[in-house]
């Protein structure tokens, strides 16, 4: 039961990043995704991989909690289409992970598909750098975990680098455009 729960937690976290606009909401989204992905990494790749994901994700969430628009701003007025997107993505990803594809890591497939697709949609749909960088951190953590698909012994390096990238993204300076 741990893996399915972790998959759902990743989806919840990515959904928080999609429907959240304030820094606390975005940080909570990153933290939830990190929690789910770290559990899945622990089961599929061992404690070092889980620790790397957890360290990177917690650093990214901590950094986000102090930078960006103030407050939670979760499900602000006008966010209904984003909520519908989150639910629809979960349904499609569940169908693909459970019925279309086979193998022992259905929860991981579900988590990665929802995490990557929702984060990419968030990056496309917003012009707010804090939300974009939060979604990018989730993409980094998910991309690091893709190596566990189709491999019985995934290496820990993608997890370590993914954690580092997620943490680093919080410190990227976001300048306003300069006049020509």
């Amino acid at each position, binding site marked *: 039961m741990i893996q399915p729960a972790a998959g759902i937690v990743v989806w919840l976290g990515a959904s928080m990043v999609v429907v959240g606009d304030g820094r606390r909401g975005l940080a909570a989204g990153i933290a939830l995704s990190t929690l789910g992905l770290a559990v899945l990494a622990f089961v599929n790749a061992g404690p070092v991989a889980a620790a790397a994901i957890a360290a990177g994700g917690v650093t990214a969430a901590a950094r986000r909690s102090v930078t960006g628009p103030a407050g939670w701003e979760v499900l602000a007025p006008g966010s209904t289409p984003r909520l519908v997107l989150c639910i629809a993505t979960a349904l499609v990803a569940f169908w*693909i992970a459970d019925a*279309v*594809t*086979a*193998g022992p890591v259905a929860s991981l*497939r579900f988590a*990665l*598909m929802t995490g*990557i*697709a929702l*984060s*990419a949609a968030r*990056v*496309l749909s*917003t*012009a*707010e*750098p804090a939300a*974009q*960088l939060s*979604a*990018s951190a989730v*993409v*980094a953590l*998910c*991309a*690091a975990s*893709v*190596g566990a*698909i*189709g*491999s019985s012994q995934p*290496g820990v*390096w*993608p997890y370590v*680098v*993914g954690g580092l*990238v997620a943490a*680093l*993204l919080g410190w*990227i*300076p*976001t*300048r*306003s*455009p*300069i*006049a*020509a």
Partner: protein
Amino acid sequence: MPPEALELLVIAAAALAFAVVFAPATASRRALLVRGGAGLAGTAAIAAVPTLDLALLVLLVLGALHAAVAGTRSFAVRLRPPVIAVAMLALGLLLVRVEAPDLVARFGAVGLVAGMAAGVGVLPYLHPIEPDEALTASPVAWLGFIGPVLAVVLVFRAQGALPIQAGGVFGGMLVGLGLLNMAWGGVAAWRTADEVAAWRYSFVADWGLVLCGFGLTVADGQRAALLVLAGLLAGRLPLYLISRQAIREKTTTRRPINLVVAAALAGSAPFVGFGARILLLRASTQIYWPLALVLALVMLLWLPGSLRLGRSLGQPRGRQALGVALILAVNVAAGLYPLPLLAAARL
């Protein structure tokens, strides 16, 4: 590191050195060196890491750092392409690796091609462009500097990961996307109102040749793709850099040098683009000969756009004139004797 990527890295380093030495006086050489050096280091990291998964993560960092460079486009607009590229590539890899019917792996191949297009900035994911933006912050940095090595790494590593049937879809997608980019880029470089956009579309058209070359999974196709990429780095990119001052001053001239540059940009003999086009046509006849007819027709679209771009170079003087002469000499040498380039890449 794939030998093709190593070779392109060396050419990219030479292009950066050229840019620093021969850049117009209005450009900041220090900024070119620092930003170009950072881009080169990131590109080298993409090529050097042992797996595609790690290359995606490096690409994400490189894209975020590029978005942070001061420019006239917003951070959000510049961050989108690399993140979308990484997301699509990661989804593609996931679908390729799962235990599933062939159809799923084919969708994975589509994701890999789409991710590569988004990363490089070709159709169907052209990056927005601002005419006044610095070269290092503009989409041309992806099309002409980072893109060649990125594409080589993605194509060669993805081909190794794909099952046979999905590999066919991957090649077919590359050829289809290549034809689309050639036609669109050729027409747009000719008809668009803005000179900077015209140069960007000329890069896109060249990328069409590259994608077709990679898609035709025979040795001649790979050779053609490599020569076009070398031409992009050692010809089109430095010529674009030199032309920026004339574009800013809205100067167009019709002197012999402009015609020679137009010939080089159009891929006529004896420049490197000519050999690449011949190899591409030969590769297409080995796979499916009517494709060679289509390719030959689409290649004609380079002519009007290249004449326009040649005029936009203005009349280079002093150091810029020397730079143009050097570019043309290198392109003629590579066109007349491309064997060392191909041998270094083991093709």
